[in-house]
């Protein structure tokens, strides 16, 4: 039996095609286990060896990794949802309804997308709390904490822009509440301190820029859609690359 398995394994791994993809054998030897970390674009986020302390789950609680994983899940489920959704106020709501009634696995993907978003907000908060409690922001990791805070803000804005897309009452009014606050921005909003004094009206202030109009309507839906599906994920991805890169450069803060 063992021989048969070995034969099958060598049949799969000892050929030009497998080698062209993986460049080394299956990681059962230490040499191949090191090589896989070098040659795989995804795995090379990690070093080849880490200190034993970094494995301790009760140090990191896997929160940073989970946050990244939720981001990936959101990207995958999000692309699926984009096939069925048009950011048009006349059909957006019906598209979401169709996801729950007509589209195969539509409701599963929508529910997964929603729960991953909640989970990501929560895990990013908990991750920040953990990093604070272990003092991992202290030198030389100050800048990575700053990148992390920006990623936290991006996560919240990503969630918030997604909130509008179903175009139901919940979406419209949650975003209306948020954009009312933008109106009150000092200097930049028409209802904020010193806003009217420097010439802010509902038609030229920061809320107008955010919504593309004076009310949450078609322009706002399109803006939020583009921000949610394209602009913010791209910015987040770039900052995540910086975040992970800096972890590698600054080293792991945990116990030896």
């Amino acid at each position, binding site marked *: 039996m063992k021989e048969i398995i070995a034969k099958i394994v060598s049949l799969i791994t000892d050929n030009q095609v497998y080698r062209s993809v993986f460049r080394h054998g299956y990681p059962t030897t230490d040499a191949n286990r090191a090589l896989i970390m070098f040659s795989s674009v995804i795995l090379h986020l990690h070093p080849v060896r880490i200190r034993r302390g970094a494995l301790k789950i009760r140090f990191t609680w896997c929160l940073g990794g989970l946050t990244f994983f939720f981001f990936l899940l959101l990207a995958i489920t999000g692309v699926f949802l984009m096939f069925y959704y048009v950011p048009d106020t006349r059909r957006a709501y019906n598209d979401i309804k169709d996801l729950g009634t007509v589209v195969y696995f539509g409701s599963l993907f929508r*529910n997964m997308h929603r729960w*991953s978003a909640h*989970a990501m907000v929560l895990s990013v908060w908990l991750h920040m709390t953990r990093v604070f409690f272990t*003092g991992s922001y202290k030198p030389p990791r100050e800048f990575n904490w700053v990148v992390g805070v920006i990623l936290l803000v991006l996560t919240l804005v990503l969630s918030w822009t997604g909130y509008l897309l179903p175009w*139901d009452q*919940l979406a419209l009014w949650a975003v209306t509440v948020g954009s009312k606050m933008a109106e009150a921005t000092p200097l930049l909003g028409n209802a904020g301190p010193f806003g009217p004094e420097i010439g802010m009206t509902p038609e030229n202030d920061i809320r107008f820029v955010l919504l593309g109009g004076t009310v949450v309507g078609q322009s706002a839906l399109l803006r939020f859609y583009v921000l949610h599906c394209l602009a913010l994920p791209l910015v987040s991805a770039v900052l995540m690359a910086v975040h992970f890169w800096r972890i590698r450069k600054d080293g792991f803060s945990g116990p030896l």
Partner: protein
Amino acid sequence: MEKVDISALIKNEAEKTRSPEDTVLVWPNLVYIELICMLFATACLMFLSVISPAPLEELASADTTPNPTKAPWYFLGLQELLVYFDPWLAGVVLPTMIIIGLIIIPYVDPNPKGKGYYTFSERKFSMLGFSFGLGLWYILIVVGVWTRGLDWSWYWPWSDPHIHMSVTAVKLIDLELIIQNMFGISETPVITLGRYAPTVSHIITVLLFLGYYAIGFTIPFLLFRNFFNQLGIIRYNLMMFFFLSMSGVMLKMLLRLTFNIKYLLVTPWFKI
């Protein structure tokens, strides 16, 4: 330009990652933990997706305003602050200050201890300060999500959510008017500068407001000089500004809840 010793840098880098003692291979040790973690998280999310599907209410309509209108849960802390502060503070200035305050944390915490392990005793102030802010944030969210109902009134879990709470006879009053009535100060402005016409009681509120920060900045400087010296003047002032503002939010909430004070400071342009 400082001369960089490349060979030392490389050696340092190598030691960080490749010192043979007490290190383990990432494959399989870490990779497998991550895989299990991802599978577990996916299973949880699938379970949640099945038992609690995403809501979809009626089609958006500008004609019917739901009551109450709630922001997403992660912003409900800020929305709850609207009870105590005007929108420019609750929705814009305070969140901005939270973000900036978080960003400067590594730069105002000079304590070298407690790096890479959980400790409370070696960094009591920073742990307490951070936990205070965090606690406030979560409490406000819990209040916003579970106890706010019609007209943003307080609803216990056992109250009927469909009946409007009777409007209580609580009248909110500005601090300025309290001072004016208490000491019988005249209402006539001391001076009139366009829209700005400060009365004596208004000037007292301004002094009280500035006095809060002034006293707050001074007391630790006088009593805990070591603390001040450790931080240095720039770090101290930055940190104290954000710390006092955070405490000030709590203080204003308490004043509003106990003495029904609406605004501490009223100007023609903004109210706090």
